[in-house]
């Protein structure tokens, strides 16, 4: 796979944190490529660096050394303001605990990223209704998170993640807080996004059933990839 076909390119990345006088190395010379349209699962024991890697790919943190590219953007060299601007359109983040704003309805939660874009209210409305229809929540527009089930809240979270049509969807244990049935629905939805909208998805998970939905599973241990398999062709 050439670099030009890759959506995500992580090159020689190191990430360390200072804990008092101690320096903790979390990621150690990590290199990873994710082709366009691939659904990649990241697995590993606690403390292996999965979430750290996810945060680097999502532009929420910067590596100590190395580069992170998402499409044509070298996000590891952007400043905070540039990263914020890139995140609006470049990435959709799905959280384990949904993290919807409790004072806003489903509609208003999905609208949040669109408020940063130069769109008219009519254009925003059209996009919001489209994505909520896609996730099957057209009849829950005006419900607040407290009035939705866990699965429904996660679907609102996914709608919020895709409403700006980002290049990449990053999901941090999206089924971690759900029962089996709801988890199944969410994984089906993510698969649907990959197939119909050709979204590239990077998902951190502890759940083997979730990992089984991915085209490829990458294992991390002590900050390094363990036997990165060759990427398979996108289904």
């Amino acid at each position, binding site marked *: 796979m050439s670099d030009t076909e890759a959506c995500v390119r992580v090159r020689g990345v190191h990430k360390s944190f200072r804990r008092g006088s101690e320096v903790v190395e979390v990621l150690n010379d990590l290199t990873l490529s994710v082709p366009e349209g691939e659904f990649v699962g990241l697995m590993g024991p606690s403390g292996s660096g999965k979430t*750290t890697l996810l*945060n680097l790919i999502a532009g929420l*943190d910067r590596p100590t050394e190395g580069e992170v590219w998402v499409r044509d953007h070298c996000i590891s060299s952007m400043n905070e*303001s540039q990263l914020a601007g890139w995140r609006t359109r470049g990435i959709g983040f799905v959280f*384990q605990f949904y*993290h919807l704003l409790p*004072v806003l309805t489903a509609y208003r939660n999905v609208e949040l990223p669109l408020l*940063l874009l130069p769109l008219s209210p009519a254009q925003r409305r059209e996009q919001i209704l489209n994505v909520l229809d896609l996730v099957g929540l057209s009849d829950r527009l005006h419900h607040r998170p407290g009035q939705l089930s866990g699965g429904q809240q996660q679907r609102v979270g996914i709608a919020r993640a895709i409403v700006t049509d980002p290049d990449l969807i990053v999901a*941090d244990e999206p089924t971690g807080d759900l029962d089996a049935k709801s988890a199944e629905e969410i994984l089906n939805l993510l698969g649907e996004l990959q197939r119909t909208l050709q979204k590239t998805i990077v998902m951190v998970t502890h759940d083997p059933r979730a990992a089984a939905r991915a085209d490829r599973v990458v294992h991390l241990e002590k900050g390094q990839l363990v036997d990165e398999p060759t990427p398979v062709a996108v289904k």
Partner: protein
Amino acid sequence: MNLLRLVLDNLFRNPLRTIFTSLATMVMVLVVTVVFSILSFLSTATTEKAQNLKGIVTERWQIPSQMPWAYANGLAEGGPHRPGDQRVDPQDAMTWSFYGGSTDPDPKKRSINTILFAFALEPRDLTEMMDGLDDLQGEQKKQFDEVVAKLEQTKTGLIVGKERLANIGKKVGDKVKVYSFNYRGIDLEFDIVGEFPEGRYDPSAAMRADYLQSAMDAWSRENAGKPHAMAGKSLNLVWLRLKDRPRFDQVADQILTNPSYSSPAVKFETASSGIATFLEAYRDLIWGMQWLLAPAILFTLSLVISNSISISVRERRMEFAVLKVLGYRPWQILFLVLTEAILVGVLSGTVSAGGTYLMVNHMLGGLKFPIAFFGTFYIAAAAWWWGAAIGGGTALAGSIGPAWAARTVRVADIFAKTA
């Protein structure tokens, strides 16, 4: 506009906290508004004017000022005594004598409900020279002109303020006898011919100067020609209105160099200087209000708001991190938190100060807070924007710290704890 919608949504996420913060703001803005109104009025009264100055002639070496009545006519003209000296027009001059007493002849029974204090003056001076009465408008002016006309027709007439009338249990049309304590033996019967317009002169009264003078002459006749003890002391103040500072200085020179006014000697100063001198006794109180009370309240208000916003920011750290993930920039997070606080501050401050203005000025008839001879204060019209400024300013001061903390929320640190 988009961010403002988010601000409004967040204001009502915890209605109780917003309401309590708002109420605290309102109470403190009310107190500061009252303090500022009093200080503003005193400042205006003690600020030198450049035109239409009012000057006061008083006895130089004694308080209270007591000058002979013989000084009255000359001083009212500006004390001219040399060729070329200027004369002050009658409508620009006013003489005052103070007559005080009780409606009860028994000194042991004197109380707020029996005491009456009157300015003895020319009736026309009420509408030509008295502060607050010389600029009446419309119906109020018409009504008071009629009251003054009645005083001109009735030598024994008395105009009384509403509050004083209520205290002594009288009404317009009644007679009242006053047993004087500063003009002993000169007890006068009055016909109450009218009231002062509501406001500054509520606790006061006005009588004709010639009634007092002729009563003193009558006393002298009844006492074998002996002059009354107050005979050489019945003129307390002379007011002169002068066009500008050069004219003031000229008249001052006329008066101070006139040998007729040397025993007792007199002084001539602007009204604002005279008031400032009188307020010397209240200097510490005024200083305390201006530099201790008001700043303490403003500081406390900032702390209250800071506390409320800090709690809100701490509760919403995860939300701010999510907003950053969605692409919201640090300045937008800062804007959200600051705007929430400032909106509450400005609205609460405006409602409080505006409400205080309406309540004090239009329902309570002024603020009863005796400082020197100022009995009643009113809330300045500027209170409407003071309230907004105080509320908004203290909200900004109190919320800048928590807002900065919200702005600098590190997303990676927040989510490192969750997975």
